[in-house]
């Protein structure tokens, strides 16, 4: 899932400094599950912001609402009727949600209340870790289900580097396990460690962000159109 984190109250307060009335819009999907932009979080944040802006001498009226999925047009259409009374929308959705709102309502300023961090999942209660970089060409079959592009700070394909320390920690951040240490262990458990002796060639990064903004097009799912000479 997409994991995001709330921007600090002081940062959002800055964004709101010249606004008088704002609509905060949360999202009930990814960001609700990582407790950044769901209904409860919207309530808490807006309460804090109302107090913060009032104490700063520039009170902002903040109304709250939540939609099921901010990234899809059908779920945000209804907001259009209300927008006239607001100076801006404060989106508590991920970066996709913010842009979806901005695209749908180009006449209204949309502000991001969250910092979208990564694609990942919970590893323990209250902790979410990055797992996928969206490289566009998954190589998890070569690495026993552990992604080196995401979990190795040097994105090694033929790791580990010489910096693994203290029984498998990454030298860059001791709280990160060395991905390659774990990959070798995992492949050993799967009894296919010798596959790692093959030298993985340079990755084609054109399927990744490096190749430019990506799209997925499914011709079988798009709205069909009658050809000119038909019907």
């Amino acid at each position, binding site marked *: 899932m997409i994991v995001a984190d709330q921007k600090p109250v002081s940062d959002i307060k800055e964004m709101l400094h010249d606004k008088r009335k704002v609509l905060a819009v949360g999202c009930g999907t990814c960001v609700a599950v990582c407790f950044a932009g769901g209904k409860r979080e919207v309530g808490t944040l807006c309460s804090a912001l109302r107090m913060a802006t009032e104490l700063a001498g520039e009170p902002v009226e903040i109304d709250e609402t939540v939609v099921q999925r901010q990234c899809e047009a059908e779920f945000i259409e209804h907001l259009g009727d209300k927008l006239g009374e607001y100076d801006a929308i404060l989106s508590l959705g991920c970066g996709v949600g913010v842009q979806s709102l901005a695209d749908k309502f180009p006449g209204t300023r949309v502000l991001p209340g969250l910092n979208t961090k990564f694609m990942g999942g919970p590893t323990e209660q209250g902790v979410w870790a990055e797992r996928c970089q969206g490289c566009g060409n998954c190589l998890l079959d070569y690495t026993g289900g552990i992604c080196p592009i995401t979990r190795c700070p*040097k*994105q090694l394909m*033929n790791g*580990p580097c*010489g910096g693994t320390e203290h029984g*498998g920690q990454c030298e860059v951040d001791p709280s990160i396990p060395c991905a390659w240490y774990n990959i070798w262990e995992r492949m050993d458990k799967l009894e296919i460690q010798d596959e790692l*002796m093959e*030298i993985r060639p*340079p990755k084609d*990064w054109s399927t990744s962000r490096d190749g430019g903004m990506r799209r997925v097009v499914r011709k079988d799912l798009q709205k069909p159109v009658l050809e000119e000479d038909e019907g």
Partner: protein
Amino acid sequence: MKTQQLAQNSAATDSGIKSGSNLERVLAAGDFAVTGEIGPPKNFDAEKVRNKVSLLKGYVDAANITDNQTGIVRMSSIGAGILILGEGLEPVIQVTCRDRNRLAMQSDILGAAAHGIKNVLCLSGDHQSFGNHPGAKNVHDLDSMQLVRMFQEMRDKNQFQCGEEISGGGPPLFIGAAANPFADPVDLRPLRLKKKAIAGTDFVQTQLIFDMARFKEYMKKTVDLGVTETVAVLAGVGPMKSPGMARYMRDNVPGITVPDEIIERLEDAVKGISKDDKEARSHAWRSEGIKICIEQIEELKDTDGVAGVHIMAIEWEAAIKPIVEGAGLYPRPGGDT
């Protein structure tokens, strides 16, 4: 000129020599090789670089020039390498995967070769978070293994990484890589070196070694895997300046283990010297540090599979002379490059 170089390459392959560098010739002749290291300055002061040359020239077969080591910006390895080559000292330039993509790496190596640089050490590179520009974007288009292979194919197949031919032939390179014998997982390290050998590594420089017994075990495994048939292993050694430095390295640098005996010897070195006499204490520690380094080199000379040493005298290039002389490695074969 172009035809001459191409012919040189073909001839080189026949005799087994790939680049014709001094370091390569010393190793090919079976002599115990010595390399040193120069850290380039944090500015464009060419004189500063040239001044360091005199401390190493004649005592080493080639000198490494680090590449934005620990993520701190310094004069480029190639830039400094050209300067020292001009002074008659052969460089080993270093290329990290952190700062350059495959285009820049190939482009840089062609530029380096055009200036006569032949030895290149391929590294992943220290993460930028350690350095003075932690907010920089890191590249890591390739890893060090892929980099070795890429340079090897440029040299031996005369082709760029994309497969296109390099008209006039590829650069004559002597390709090196780094090895850290004691980093976790320890069992894996000889295998990883084997992988680097398959990728096309000609020589390897290891991280600093202080635990001789453990290193000998590593070398045995390395030899058994057949690595030393195609790869020249240069063991990393370096003189300690003080027991504090020894402890710091033991506790903070991944893969460096320092046996207690060494720390004890350093501590004992200042027995009888007043705590206030800082100069005398420092001198005593350094003398002992050099002595220990010389002993280690003697032991390494007798270790199967070790083709030479890489002396890292960090911020103490003046130590190289006494170490090389004390270890009976002076004069160097072939004299000046």
